């Protein structure tokens, strides 16, 4: 071992360098914690969160054309779309749309498959529920969006 290495070993240079790294990080500005209920994380635009059935903002009609492509694309087969044919316009109209959130893996294949941008995975990630049935969303919940209970204080 060279003299320089020996001196470094005796004077514990490597240990002191490590100590200085941890010492430096004690600065309160280095803290990386987000304190959750107060500071909610800002998620990206493409975030695959809670699903939503979009409606046309002016007419308040659903954008879904009941084509069933999302149900066919879903790997878990958890979307059930039922429709009826409108006698006058000869088009399919959506009646019920069931989405089982408990089995969903948020892969986004349904969102990719939808031709009209009706089904969209939004940025909502707070999806906790008290019951298993509460995780199966019907059309109303999907259009309205989840409305979590806001606890005070």
């Amino acid at each position: 071992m060279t003299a320089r290495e020996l001196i470094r070993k005796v004077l514990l240079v490597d240990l002191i360098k490590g100590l200085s790294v941890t010492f430096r990080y004690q600065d309160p500005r280095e803290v990386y914690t987000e304190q959750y209920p107060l500071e909610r994380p800002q998620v990206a635009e493409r975030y695959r969160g809670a699903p939503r059935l979009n409606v046309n903002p002016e007419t308040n009609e659903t954008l879904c054309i009941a084509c069933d492509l999302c149900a066919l694309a879903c790997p878990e087969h958890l979307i059930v779309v039922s429709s009826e044919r409108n006698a006058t316009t000869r088009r399919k109209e959506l009646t019920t749309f069931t989405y089982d959130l408990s089995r969903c893996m948020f892969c986004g294949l349904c969102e990719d498959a939808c031709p009209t941008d009706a089904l969209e995975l939004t940025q909502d990630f707070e999806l906790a529920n008290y019951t298993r049935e509460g995780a199966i969303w019907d059309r109303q919940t999907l259009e309205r969006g989840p409305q979590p209970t806001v606890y005070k204080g």
Partner: protein
Amino acid sequence: MKDEHNPGTAHLDLDTPEAQLRLTQQERARRDETFLDANELVLNMGPQHPSTHGVLRVILKLDGEKVLGTECVIGYLHRGVEKIAEHRTYTMFNPYVDRMDYVAAVSNGLGYCEAVEKILNVEAPPRAQYIRVILAELNRLASHMLWLGTHALDIGAITPLFYTFRDREEILKIFEKYCGARLTTHAFRIGGCLYETYDGFEEDVRKFSKFVAPKIDEYETLLTTNRIWVERTKGVGFISAKDAIDLGVTGPVLRASGVKWDLRKAQPYAAYKDFDFEIPIGSNGDTYDRYLVRIAEMRQSLRIIQQAVDGLPEGPIMAKIPKVIKPAVGEIYHSIEAPKGELGYFIVSDGSTQPYRVRVRPPSFVNLQALDKMVRGALVADVVAVIGTIDIVLGEVDR
């Protein structure tokens, strides 16, 4: 070895530690052995353990503190992913693949998409390949950072974990902005990429590379020359190059034993032949070298990312593939260099929309077989270090 006095144990081969664990207390007493008298102690590092990464059960046969043999019991995280593949179409199976090596989900997706593209005989366009390389290398960085944090934690240094996770957050933010998820990314599609790079993608990646280079130096300051770290990892868990090749070990474990084999150079896939990077090799196949190899790999990944971002070509991001994917009858094997080793997909197609068989060759599963060779003769504390250094993810081992 058989025990004539104990007919109840006739069906057991009492040499394996597994068998010894099954002896009841009466049988053991009848053999006049208490656990203190025995020269060999069978210790169960059970599935719930703060340091085996995931649910891995290791049965150790000890002589005092020295390890005489090990037996790994896996399967606690088996979810039947390969069976699921037989009942899903090729596109539908894509999200499931992320869940195997959940730490580095992007490379799983890359391997699968490339394998299906190979069987379909299409090639992803150059822009898609560059995007794939950028994300795959970011993914390699993320996986190695997590490995570093947990490995240091096993050896007792509790702070590097938080530093690496903090830096890994930045990578996960980029993933989130790109494809919408942090962990199970489902970033690629068969034929290319679905998502175009978002506005500011290149800036983010460049900013990130500038941000993380000094951080890697910091991890090195904390660990590489630290005498305690060196003593704990040098000479521990040695595996020779010949043994590594015989056992089929790949990835940084193989490269640390001195074998220059990296699929990115040996069988280039995606856009890797366009980039200039080195393969770090170790000389002694011990834990310290594996640590150095992975740190060097992190730096080389940064190099690749910078080259890729600088040279990102314009063009389409999705190749022309049919709407319904029905490959010709046949089978292929395609492998990529995942952060943990060679990740291979063997797909057998019977002409329908659902694959007949998808067999995944997980690197962690094969590397775990080297555990026995590495810890014979070492101490119990080293077993923990060696499990950490092989870098296993149980999701991959069990699928």
